[in-house]
């Protein structure tokens, strides 16, 4: 497993992470909970001391399809902050690129910094609208907000 790989929980992984079932061992579950779609394998391995043999455990979770590194595999619900939230962020970032082109950088950063929940993303969208209106293009600001809300189901 590459150290720079960013992993996220799949829909199945989200379900297990948020349930109290005993489908996986406690060690696997602890590792599953630290996968957040932001932290690299190397960072997890260096910081997460409470999971024994982290990299091997991550490989096991990967084999069980509870975590993944390919965002297109996510089919989860949008209310979760893990993989599905990351998918929404990617969609919003693509929307920003489509509408704003080379000027999308700061907008994308705001979206990336937000949590993956719809409420947090809506707040980020409102902040992005202000940023676009003030510094990029007045007209595109409202279009971005409207289309962004559709994407996050608001």
């Amino acid at each position, binding site marked *: 497993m590459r150290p720079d790989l960013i992993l996220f929980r799949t829909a199945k992984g989200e379900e297990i992470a948020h349930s109290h079932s005993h489908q996986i061992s406690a060690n696997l579950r602890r590792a599953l909970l630290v996968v957040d779609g932001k932290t690299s394998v190397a960072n997890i391995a260096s910081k997460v001391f409470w999971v024994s043999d982290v990299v091997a455990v991550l490989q096991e979770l990967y084999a069980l399809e509870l975590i993944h590194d390919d965002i297109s595999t996510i089919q989860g619900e949008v209310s979760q902050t893990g993989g599905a939230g990351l998918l929404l962020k990617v969609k919003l970032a693509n929307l920003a690129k489509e509408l704003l082109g080379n000027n999308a950088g700061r907008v994308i950063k705001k979206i990336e910094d937000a949590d993956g929940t719809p409420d947090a993303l809506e707040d980020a969208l409102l902040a992005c609208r202000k940023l676009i209106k003030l*510094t990029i293009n*007045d007209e595109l600001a409202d279009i971005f907000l409207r289309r962004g809300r559709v994407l996050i189901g608001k």
Partner: protein
Amino acid sequence: MGFNLSTILNFSAILIMFYCLYLALSLKSSIPGGMVGKQWNFLTILVTLFTFGFLTTPFFDQLPEDILRLVVSLIFLFGAIYVVVTVRLIFNIIRELTE
């Protein structure tokens, strides 16, 4: 003493204006448009005008009095316009952020 002081003040003003021009041009690429971007272009033009105007201040003693009065009046006029544009810009930004 009076001459030295005014020379120092003139050169200080020129240096500050060049710094202001540098800031205005540096920020330009970060503000391609929108409410601030539109006003920023105008402010940059005014700053450029002031920079060239300030560069003439060391030669003021060589200008005829009528021309000197006109130049000073123009500096006051454009200074007032600059202040209005800046205050309106800040007003609009605050209004937008507190909406």
